[in-house]
């Protein structure tokens, strides 16, 4: 493939305009080919497999039978599905909290102060960590007996007896979300920082001359121009958190009860623990449609410019 493109490039020099466009199109498709091929193999074909399977009854030892919409029907009355869906939406809904904190930190780090690189590093350091390790770290932080969080809360007399964070129906999901935000915060901040530094300084100067105060400048200039970056944060944050299988799997395993069950963990359990790959496929399809819809809505909301990260 590489040779082909090189030759296409060479011939390109001595070609007519009309042939040039065809050749260019060929070149463009050649450039796209490796990525497209990988996505075809590992995203699109598996998705198609899921779509087909969702209309069938199948398990590794039983031949497939077409059953129409039965799997989808079952979802309507499956309480665990609704609980996982709700938990998933809850996690997506918490993404803006992380983004807001990250935005505040980005604004501060963007200020002209000494040691900003140190702060930036400290805040970003949690992102490159292995998620399994993050889960282990936070399980230890939340530990009922000797976890730091309970220790601090007890020392300050905020609580009388230790809170069983990861075993409590009330606290388990927020605890997982806290760990997730801790890991993602640095990433959000870097993206937002990039966005901030791309805002031309003269806009602020003009606004200042017009007498706009800092808060108005933030609302009128910073926030609107930051929209694409915020969109990117939201989409990546959403994908990262709803697919944070490792985190939930190691921290709580979806429990207690179904308190931290999210759609990806449920899909995994349906398939591999209950051997219900057919039904799991139907849940996957619904999950996929849900993510697409949310991403599309977020894109519309941010001004319909998906993918434009750094510039207009």
């Amino acid at each position, binding site marked *: 493939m590489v040779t082909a493109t090189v030759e296409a490039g060479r011939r390109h020099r001595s070609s007519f305009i009309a042939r040039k466009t065809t050749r260019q199109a060929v070149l463009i498709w050649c450039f796209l080919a490796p990525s497209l091929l990988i996505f075809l193999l590992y995203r699109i074909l598996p998705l198609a497999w899921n779509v087909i399977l969702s209309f069938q009854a199948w398990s590794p030892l039983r031949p497939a039978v077409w059953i129409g919409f039965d799997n989808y029907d079952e979802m309507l009355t499956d309480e665990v599905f609704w609980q996982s869906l709700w938990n998933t939406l809850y996690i997506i809904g918490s993404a803006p909290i992380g983004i807001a904190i990250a935005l505040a930190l980005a604004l501060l780090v963007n200020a002209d102060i000494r040691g900003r690189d140190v702060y930036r590093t400290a805040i970003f350091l949690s992102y490159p960590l292995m998620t399994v390790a993050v889960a282990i770290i936070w399980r230890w932080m939340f530990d009922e007996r000797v976890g730091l969080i309970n220790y601090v809360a007890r020392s300050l007399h905020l609580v009388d007896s230790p809170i069983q964070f990861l075993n409590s129906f009330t606290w388990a999901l927020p605890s997982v979300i806290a760990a997730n935000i801790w890991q993602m915060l640095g990433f959000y901040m870097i993206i937002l920082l990039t966005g901030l530094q791309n805002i031309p300084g003269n806009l602020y100067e003009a606004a200042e001359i017009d007498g706009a105060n800092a808060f108005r400048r933030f609302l009128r200039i910073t926030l609107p121009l930051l929209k694409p970056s915020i969109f990117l944060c939201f989409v990546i944050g959403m994908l990262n958190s*709803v697919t944070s299988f490792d985190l939930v799997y190691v921290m709580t395993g979806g429990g207690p009860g179904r308190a931290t069950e999210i759609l990806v963990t449920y899909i995994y359990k349906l398939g591999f623990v209950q051997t219900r790959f057919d039904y799991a496929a139907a849940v996957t399809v619904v999950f996929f449609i849900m993510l697409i819809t949310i991403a599309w809505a977020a894109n519309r909301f941010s001004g319909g410019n998906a993918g434009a990260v750094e*510039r207009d």
Partner: protein
Amino acid sequence: MRHYPRWPIHLILLVASFIMLVPFYWVLKTSVSGENIFTYPPNIIPRNPHLFYYVDVWYAIPFARYFLNSVIVSVLTIAANVIFNAMAGYALTRGFRGKNLVLMLFLSCMMVPFQATIIPAYLITGKLGLLDSYLGLALPQFSTIICIFVFKASFDAVPKSLIDAAKIDGLSEWRIIWKVMMPLAKSAMATNIILSFIWSWNNFLWPLIMTRSADMQTLPLGLSRFLSYQEDTTGALYAFCVMVLAPGILLFLLAQKEFIQGLTSGATKG
């Protein structure tokens, strides 16, 4: 810019950095603790610290082998990502028929949860004859959508006049990418390297399903294995955590100037 007091900014950032770093300290502390790690109240500073748990880990699993496997897979992934994503990103800066379709396709590919694709992915990898191999471990991550868009955005920022000038000079498209665009897209490259490294280094479920022989296991598998038979009853688990995380953090700290600065300031230069 008007002058304003700096100390509140420092204060807030100090508190934020503290909160972000405390978990690191807590794990590090546990991993060198000499006392029973379940005594209450926990000691903030470890009493008679020692490295016993680290020795424990070293002998409990073939750490060096797992480490090497993780490095090989990550290097393959990074190399493929930089090349393929740059090519795809460049293609997307051009107008062509079907571009919107490709864009839509890429965006929707992001939404396919990996956990649901294990079985078909496994079968496909098997058909390619890549089971239990480094290439098979790395292949699904050879191109990542987010990174393609990072390249596209970076290339979009290159002034069109520069490309036209290069064309008039008779440079081929291939050369334009590598000689003109890439040097201007250092930030995108840095982002690609660091992100693909992180994703590949952290991958857990795929190697779990994919690898059969003990020689092919990667570090996250070692971590999960360790978690299971030690439960969290000894400090060794935390020593292992530190050993797994240290290389990544070290790499990041060494290269962070290029990474973050490239990432945050590169685009404005374009």
